[in-house]
């Protein structure tokens, strides 16, 4: 029996993404129509019951976030969709933005209705130039059809969505940096407090959710929070888009019910990753982008849901699943991860700016076979400090992969100290 689900992705590839008619013919805007007949708080109650854990990476319960913002006074309130999708190996938002943009528009519109907002912003990453243009077309089409713009569906409520973009900095995926970028400030994270819900975009109360989270909203309104929750399990409601790539036969975006598949299913099942090419062994897999944890073959039977993964020290994060085969040296891989963070750090806080550079220094000693036990200890101390002391999520998560590797594959670090690694020190 197939484990793949087709709910969020049901229209993907089946409609003209810029056609309102096509979208409506497959159930589009039913959620918005229904929402407009509901009290805002009733919609939030459905969101709470749905237990939608934010799809951007931090897995913060969306219903809770909505309720908090609802209770904050002040207007206007702004709706912001984080479409920066900067985590390497993540391309699930791209599918929605490109192939079913109106589901995101609909979700943002429902949020707009709940908070009485008149303006929503969608920040689409700099590299998705073509998608930005197409998304704008979709917005225009929705306006023409009366689902956006003035007096939406005769309700007397006006709501517009603006497409914005930066130049492609990873840190702009951090919500407060993203708001700065929208405001044409430098894309660096903001100091908190104040929190974004209170002092967000243009210093007004603001809701920031991920693309996939917004696309889930019409589903929740349509089917009810309870039904949505039951698609998932263990306090982790709904379905989830997983982008699978790396050393797998199928590089795909899969939709699965949360908790209804295991990591092994995702990597090996024919309808998902389809196994590792050339019959090679799995060495490890990297979840949720560069800031996410690394898992190993002995963890493959973990169900793909927040709670079960957490027990293993793993997490869904952005929904990326990058698979690496036996030919990859852990140290080499971690060096690449580290280079990524060195490149993408905003540079303003010490642990991230200086720490990543030092992580690279020490890992290079392992790579060169000159590291000692003291270096391994220092690496761990550095990781603890960066994780606890960095200004924003970028620095705090920069050592997540490193920590997993030291925890589960300490032996490989020790082998490098002795100059033993088939990749780094090949025997002639």
């Amino acid at each position: 029996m197939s484990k793949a689900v087709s709910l969020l992705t049901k229209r993907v590839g089946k409609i003209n993404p810029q056609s309102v008619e096509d979208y409506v013919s497959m159930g589009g805007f039913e959620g918005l129509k229904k929402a407009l007949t509901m009290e805002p708080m009733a919609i939030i109650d459905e969101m709470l019951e749905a237990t939608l854990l934010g799809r951007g990476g931090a897995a913060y319960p969306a219903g809770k976030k909505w309720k908090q913002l609802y209770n904050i006074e002040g207007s206007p309130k702004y709706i912001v969709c984080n479409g920066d999708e900067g985590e390497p190996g993540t391309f699930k938002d791209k599918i929605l933005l490109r192939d079913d943009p109106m589901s995101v528009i609909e979700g943002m519109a429902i949020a707009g209705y709940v908070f009485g907002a008149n303006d929503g912003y969608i920040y689409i990453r700099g590299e998705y130039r073509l998608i930005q243009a197409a998304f704008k077309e979709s917005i225009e089409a929705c306006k023409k059809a009366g689902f956006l713009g003035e007096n939406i569906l005769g309700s007397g409520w006006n709501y517009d969505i603006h497409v914005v973009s930066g130049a492609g900095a990873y840190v702009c995926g951090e919500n407060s940096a993203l708001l700065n970028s929208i405001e044409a400030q430098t894309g660096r994270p903001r100091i908190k407090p104040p929190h974004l819900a209170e002092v967000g975009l243009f210093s007004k109360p603001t809701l920031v959710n991920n693309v996939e989270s917004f696309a889930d909203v019409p589903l929740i309104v349509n089917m009810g929070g309870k039904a949505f929750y039951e698609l998932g399990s263990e306090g982790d409601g709904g379905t989830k888009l997983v982008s699978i790539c790396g050393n797998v036969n199928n590089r795909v975006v899969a939709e699965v019910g949360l908790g209804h598949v295991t990591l092994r299913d995702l990597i090996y099942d024919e309808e998902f990753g389809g196994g590792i090419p050339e019959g090679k062994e799995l060495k490890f897999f990297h979840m949720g982008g560069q800031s996410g944890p690394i898992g190993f073959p002995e963890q493959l039977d973990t169900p793909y849901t927040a709670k079960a993964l957490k027990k293993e020290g793993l997490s869904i994060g952005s929904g990326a699943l990058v698979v690496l085969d036996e030919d990859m040296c852990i140290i080499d891989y971690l060096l690449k991860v580290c280079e990524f963070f060195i490149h993408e750090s905003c540079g303003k806080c010490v642990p991230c700016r200086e720490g990543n550079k030092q992580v690279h220094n020490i890992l290079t000693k392992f790579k060169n076979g000159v590291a000692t036990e003291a270096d391994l200890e220092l690496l761990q101390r550095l990781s603890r400090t960066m994780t606890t002391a960095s200004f924003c999520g970028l620095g705090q998560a920069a050592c997540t992969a490193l920590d997993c590797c030291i925890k589960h594959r300490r032996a490989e670090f020790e082998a490098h100290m002795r100059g033993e690694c088939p990749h780094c020190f090949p025997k002639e």
Partner: protein
Amino acid sequence: MHFDPNKMITIKIDGIPVTVPSGTKIIDAAAKIGIKIPSLCHHPDLNVRAFCRVCLVEDTWSRRLKTACNNVVDECGDVFTNTPRVREARKTVLELILANHPQDCLSCPKSGKCELQTLAQEYNLRENPFDSVFTRVPKQLDNPAIVRDMSKCVRCGRCVEACQNVQGTNAIGYHHRSVDFNIGTAFNNPLNSTACVLCGQCVAACPVGALNEKDDTEKVWDAIHDPNKHVVVQVAPAVRVAIGDDFGLPKGSVATGSMVAAMRKLGFDKVFDTNFAADLTIMEEGTELLHRIQNGGTLPMITSCSPGWVNYVEKTYPDMMPNLSTCKSPQQMFGAIAKTYYAEKNNIPKENMVVVSIMPCVAKKYECARPEMNDSGVQDVDYVLTTRELAKMIRTRGLDLAKMPEEEFDNPLGLASGAGAIFGTSGGVMEAALRSVYEMVTGKQAGDLDFVGVRGHEAIKEASLDLNGTTVKVAVTSGLKNAKVLLDKIRAGEADYHFIEVMCCPGGCVGGGGQPFRTTAAIKEKRMDGLYKVDMKSTYRQSHKNPEIHKLYEDFLGEPNGHKSHELLHTHYTQREVK
């Protein structure tokens, strides 16, 4: 903005309960019970940025450590400031900073005053486990006032905060990201070609040796030791209430007498007082104001004592140059008078004279080198030293200021009124002017010489004065961001002031860019109090009552705003291009 300061919050820090208003930062709550949380980028007068991550604390609500500088008591559990986790993280952060910092404390001008050095000692840092990733970049020596040695920059952002959010000049900002993240001018243009006014608030804010005044002490030593030179020194009002900071005297101590004694021991031939020149400024500026009011001149007239402020007008508000008083600053009036009146009187060829100024200011270094400032025929003021540089010379000479006897200034350029003394604080020039102008116009002394309405450090102070039926409206401000508010009002025709006092640095010269390091708003207030004490104790409290000033006009200048005054004591302004 969402914290109610009337609501009191009680939290426990290291087990000690402390009750503070809602919204109080953990670092301030801890200070209240005598626990100093170390920090590098935090400064009590500047917006919080939380860049350095040194002020880490642990609390019972959070999995991660918190920075005490930005987190508030409302959003934390019990706080612990000295757990093994806290110590390890703070130490690691400091080691990371040091691994990208030159290890040349011995030759660093900030040594002994450096906040990073202090922290390294407090945290017992000896051998750094991290390899050095430091690379040296050339020092930037492109202007006469400020040296920028960015190799030493720890990127704490205090200078940017001072430049952008205190002064609003925006000459420097953040550039690039990650390992390339740095602080500098746009496109790395030379500082003086930008909107920078050389106020030195960035220097005052810098915790390390990255920003300093250009050191001129060696040149002054050379002059002192040159037997062919007659070296006179003048000292600005705000120096006497700040120099004690560097010698362990209580903040705001009036150290005039011991400072004069120390300067004499340094070998200056004569020790004079800029306060004298401040009295002279009042004579000229007061007369100019009355002239403008009575003859339809450009109003409001704005003071021109503060060289950073003059730079600001020339660079950023050139259309308002006609509003600036044409009076030179007291320092430059002094220089011009010293090399003419004093030189002639004592038969000293002005070429053999060296005039040194001790100023709380770094912009004065630029001012004395301006091409207009040689009306005596040679450069009127040769060298400007900051308060900090004077302290350095006193230490070099091996003198303890606290043990110096009290000595008097030399004459004739050393006698000053209390009105001259208060030039060193925001509101002081205005008050001094009002004390004299009132009498010049009405012929009677003001009943109360204390115009307290213009005192204090509020952003903008306003007052009005009845001068024989004419209501004269005045305003006082300090800090360029505040000054900008006034200038925009004037531009928009929304202000009808006659006279405005602007000092470039917040609080006036007591908070100047050349004052001892680690100055805070609280310390500035003590210095203000010190200056008002000097004023109260003065024999003369109005500039025009100073007998030496009378003598100067009788013997040499003629009358205020007269021909000779215009030649020596007034100047003009030039629009300057900003890159």
